[in-house]
């Protein structure tokens, strides 16, 4: 081991890294601009997504798609959303298309659940390193 060099020849960093150092956005930060959608009732309480498809088999009543970049992900039916979001009628095809949802029918929420790890369980800003 003593025959191996004990210091580096040179450290060259790529433009991508230096761009990050200069305050560029990390790829993942853009996700903060993505809106999170929930199917809600008139009281902004999250309901089952089946109520927001337009097949007429909903639980009855009128429902909305509430969306905001500020909504936490992974909330479950029964939770009440905080103020500050926007919403449109569940069957407003123009709005649905504008936000990248299928114009009609069930909005598949995908099968992948994210936001299941991270933030140390308490959401505070503490270093994960040491």
């Amino acid at each position, binding site marked *: 081991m003593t025959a191996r060099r004990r*210091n580096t020849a040179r450290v060259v960093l790529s433009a991508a890294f230096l761009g990050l150092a200069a305050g560029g956005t990390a790829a*993942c930060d853009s996700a903060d601009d993505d809106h999170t959608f929930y199917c809600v009732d008139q009281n902004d309480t999250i309901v089952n997504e089946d109520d927001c498809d337009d097949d007429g088999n909903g639980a009855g009543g009128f429902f909305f798609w509430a969306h905001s970049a500020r909504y936490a992900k992974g909330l479950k039916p029964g939770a009440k959303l905080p103020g500050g979001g926007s919403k449109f009628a569940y069957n407003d095809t123009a709005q649905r298309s504008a936000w*990248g949802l299928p114009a009609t029918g069930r909005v598949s929420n995908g099968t992948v659940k994210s936001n299941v790890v991270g933030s140390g369980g308490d959401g505070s800003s503490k270093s994960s390193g040491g």
Partner: protein
Amino acid sequence: MRRVAHGVQRHGWEQTNASLGLTYNATPLADGRTLSYWREGPFYDFDLDEILALEQAATTLHRMCVTAGDHLVAGCPRRDRAVRREAYLSAECWPDTCRLAKIGIPEYAHEQVIRTWFDGDKDAWTHSDKDLFGAHTHAPQGPDYSPSVYGRFDLWYAGKGSTPKLLEFNAQTPTALLESAVIQWSWLEQTLQTHHHERQWNVVHERLVEAWRRNMAELRAARPWLPERPKIYFAYETSETSGEDRMNVAYLMETATQAGFPTELIAMSQIGVDQVDGSIRFQQGQFEVGPQIDVIFLLYPWEWLWHEEGGRPIFRNMADPTKRGTVWIEPPWTAALWSNKGLLPVLWELFGDKPEGELLLPAYFAVDKPAAMSSYAKKPIWSREGANVELVRDNVPLVANPGEYGREGFVYQELRELPSFPGNEGDCHPVLGVWMIDGEPAGLGIREGVGVDGLITRNDAHFVPHTIGSHL
């Protein structure tokens, strides 16, 4: 080893450092002041002999830690295939029957701790160890491989004539990597305060690039269906707002990119679990199924993750006998076996009476603490940045650091106060961080605290660069 108090101060050093990634230099204090994390001016200087002694100590300590890992794994009932098969749904690991349970690791994680520890050894953990019920006997798999790239020993050392002592091993999520590998190297090149041919102990950058190449080649040999250059995701917790986690991860990612691998920086919250097949995916939007993550580095403690919602599904995915599960770097064994203070009493138990025990301080779990031990550091088994550490000298508390850790218990390590060097603001107390890259010592990063509080290296400790054979 000496502290040079009045070295060169570079004009515009803060901007220079920031342009290389040290964007988190200004550390806000509780009283409203701001502290410079980087020390510009002072530095530590070593003789080459001292560096060689540290290098030798780190090599020996690493070997001892491997022995300790084997010992810990052997002390878990789930090491035994028959137990895993019979006790598929019942609990076998209790604090008095299992060394992993004793330090608070949930039992569901034990099997993968053991598996990832043995990966790469073709005899220790075979296909039948994974395929407990013989569901995949038609397609037996060879041994798997779990890449491990880096870690950092924190050592007490007072220079020639003293023996380095292990304070702890941060084998899972060590930071100060960027400062060590890049910032202090550019400081050295710009300030030219040594003419010695070795200049600085710092081969971290090149070794990291080599480590990615070697580890990923081993992984591909074990999982030949992976693309020649598998994409490596790098995840960090975006709620950490100082930028320290982000830039440390971004730098590590940079070394993987330089090793030739496609990479992507993602947030912890973007790691998703597919409810259909249990696969782990990179999830950007709410309404899509993102790409499967084959390999991921995460700067996030396993001891938090395995208590979170995603913990069980992630470990279930890891256990896939066909080896199609996501590969996690650093692997869970780094947290369970090395990167917690429970390692310290285990090392002492194994090596306290042996010659290499000179690199250790006597350490005990709370129940084994000798009554005569009156000067000690009381450390929580799981803790970060010196939180909940308390130093006691002759039964009198010397200094204590508050925090939220300690639920899983404490260890007691004989007190060895850090060496003192005079500085402008008071006595400076350095801890030497020796970087282990791919299992070999590769460089040094020093952090120093100031005054009595600085005897515990906390998040307000400064990073101080070093030289070999300075003429100043």
